[in-house]
């Protein structure tokens, strides 16, 4: 499995860090040997719709296998404040490079 995935950012929920139209390269192997830590930006699958991807910042590590994710633009973000902590298995990887528009 190639470790990098490309994603295009589609909305405002990570503003001002990421804007719609930006690209992110995601390292899918980032959390093979270590757990995610607060502050890291990750791409994850939506817990209620696994075909949708979200890009969020890890606010805290909620438990051994769950994390709490929040968008930087809290007013415009659907995240753990609505859907609760997410399983680590839903994390696709860590945002390695962000290519700003």
């Amino acid at each position, binding site marked *: 499995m190639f470790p990098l995935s490309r994603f295009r950012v589609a*909305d405002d929920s990570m503003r001002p860090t990421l804007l719609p139209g930006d690209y992110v390269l995601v390292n899918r192997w980032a959390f093979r040997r270590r757990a995610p830590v607060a502050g890291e930006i990750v791409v994850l699958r939506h817990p209620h719709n696994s075909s*949708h*991807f979200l*890009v969020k910042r890890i606010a805290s590590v909620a438990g051994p296998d769950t994390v709490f994710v929040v968008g930087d633009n809290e007013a415009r973000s659907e995240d753990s404040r609505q859907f609760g902590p997410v399983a680590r298995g839903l994390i696709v990887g860590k945002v390695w490079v962000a290519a700003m528009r």
Partner: protein
Amino acid sequence: MSVLHSILRTMDRMFPARVADAHCDIPCGIYDPHHAQMAAHTVIRMVGLINDLPKPGPNDPPEKRQEYEAKLARYIATKEQHAELVKHEIRILWGDYFKPEHVQQFPQLHDLVWKALKAGSKARQEVNLQAAEDLLKATNEIATTFWKTKGLDTVTVKAPYPTERMTVYPKFH
């Protein structure tokens, strides 16, 4: 525009990247309970029209019966569509607009939405004026709550529609 972005954009044209952060909404931030309120008035109006529609008698010609059936079918279809529309619009407000802090401020919100959806289903299933009235009442209460979260007071007035039922408008100062 960075070089990396240009490269990725070119790649995207050939092999589209997956989209991150696409929940079903943009979100655009444009919400208004007015659609739901109008649709709830429509449901009441359709119940009225159905009840007032003269039924053909046994001695009426078939054309008369056909006309009756055509009108009835249209009223029923419109009633069902609009009851469903109210439910759809309320679900959008509930799921997308209202945030946990709004629920803290208005703890009755979930119950209100639930009542509205139940009344919406009943108003759709039956020719039931009371269900239609309940649907409008709950929708108006949701509208009041919505405008309060925007910091706006509301006025409850008789709507300028044939239903002559009450409706809630925001008060702009």
